[in-house]
């Protein structure tokens, strides 16, 4: 299986690369000699990214009390690790535009991913001990493996989706993928994140969001993304019935200390945020 995933990812090398500005920020954060000023300078060299970042920093979504007018101030107020998350979150949709497919529209795909990100962020604020902005990014990236499978293995991907529709039961898509392909989109996405050198927390959340028992280092964050994925589906379908979506792993509630009581309020909050968030993260 590992070999198959590696082959699959070889095929997308060069088709999708993270933007220069993100790679530069990532590099500077890892470099102990770099300063906030270096990071601000790297951001300023990408004017369109600068504009989007300032717009985000000043939006109600970010919720800062003072106005952020310059990149220097944005970097110092937001903090370097969060800047890295923001840079990743703002560029992921355009990055994957290089991997089109006929099975799902990019609008629908990112709509779900963004809902998952918003729900994960709301849950993280209530679960305590998890950084909401990191979990937001994990939520946004959780299904990236899907886009790789859809683009590289369209026939098998179609067969997996048809298998889901063919069952009366709720056969989750990842289980259909395992039956058809021998691996699933979470494993593919996790491997891509690893090859990209993304932070270990993101890699684990992406790789284990359907199999939270496998999360060794970040079980709570992974459990949050698992819950967020399913609650996001409920928000998209305008339902409050957990049985309308794939089954939740009960261990996810235990790991996060959250309970089903919060679902309605979380869905409501996410539905209120989605339109603004689409403009900030999915717009150009």
């Amino acid at each position, binding site marked *: 299986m590992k070999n198959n995933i590696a082959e699959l990812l070889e095929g997308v090398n060069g088709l999708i690369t993270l933007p220069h500005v993100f790679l530069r920020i990532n590099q500077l954060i890892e470099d102990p000699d770099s300063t906030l000023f270096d990071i601000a300078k790297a951001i300023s060299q990408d004017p369109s990214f600068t504009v989007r970042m300032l717009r985000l920093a000043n939006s109600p979504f970010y919720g800062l009390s003072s106005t952020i007018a310059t990149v220097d101030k944005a970097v110092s107020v937001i903090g370097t690790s969060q800047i890295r998350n923001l840079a990743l979150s703002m560029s992921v949709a355009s990055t994957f535009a290089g991997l089109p497919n006929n099975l799902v529209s990019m609008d629908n*795909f990112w709509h779900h991913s963004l809902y998952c990100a918003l729900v994960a962020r709301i849950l993280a604020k209530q679960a305590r001990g998890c950084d909401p902005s990191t979990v937001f990014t994990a939520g946004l990236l959780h299904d990236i493996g899907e886009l790789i499978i859809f683009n590289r293995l369209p026939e098998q991907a179609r067969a997996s*989706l048809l298998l889901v529709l063919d069952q*009366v*039961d709720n056969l989750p898509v990842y289980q259909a993928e395992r039956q058809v392909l021998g691996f699933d989109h979470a494993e593919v996405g996790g491997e891509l994140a690893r090859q990209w050198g993304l932070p270990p927390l993101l890699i684990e959340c992406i790789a284990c969001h359907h199999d939270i028992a496998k999360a060794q280092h970040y079980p709570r964050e992974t459990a949050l993304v698992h819950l967020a994925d399913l609650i996001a589906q409920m928000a998209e*379908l305008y339902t409050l019935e957990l049985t309308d979506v794939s089954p939740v792993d009960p261990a996810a509630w235990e790991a996060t200390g959250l309970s089903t009581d919060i679902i309605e309020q979380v869905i409501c909050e996410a539905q209120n945020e989605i339109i603004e968030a689409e403009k900030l993260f999915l717009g150009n």
Partner: protein
Amino acid sequence: MSLPTIPRPPLVLPGFEHVRRTWNSTYEAYAARILPGEYYVTANNEGVYTTLGSCISACIRDRVSGIGGMNHFMLPASGDADGWKSTSLSAATRYGNFAMEHLINVILKNGGKRQNLEVKLFGGGRILQNMTDVGMRNITFARDYIQTEGLKVIAEDVGDIFPRMVVYFPATGKVRVKRLRSLHNNTILEEENRYLSTVESKPVCGEIELF
């Protein structure tokens, strides 16, 4: 250790031998899967299910005897550029009549009574935003048809923007409707378009036997 025993499938009514039925442990019953353009009628305790995008399904049964079934259809496009609008509209309606009458006639032929029939309607979703609302056209047709036939819709879940999976148990009249994620939109649309192209290339001909 004993394996859970799966009972043999109930007897199938003549004409439906080709429909695939699988055992479902959640419902502890067999369920028949129908595709666009198909229908299924049963006199036994088994389910019938399908997935719907802009297509529509009528679930009809005799509430006394429990004989009933489900169809799955859509009206072919009408209003061609050649100006033969009225002709193609009636051709489209003829197709809808065909789908509805087949289902009702087979129920009646197997002992259902017209005065006992109850109808539930599902589907007709607008799963593509930038196209004419073909789902609504199917809903309107089905409602009109049922009214004209003097039947009554006792429950429906139609329209809106979601594809649906519908599971129907004619013996009890129970239905489970599940809204499906937008991830499934294109796969369902492909299936419906394939069906539509066969309908449009093979217009309905022949008489329908009325009971």
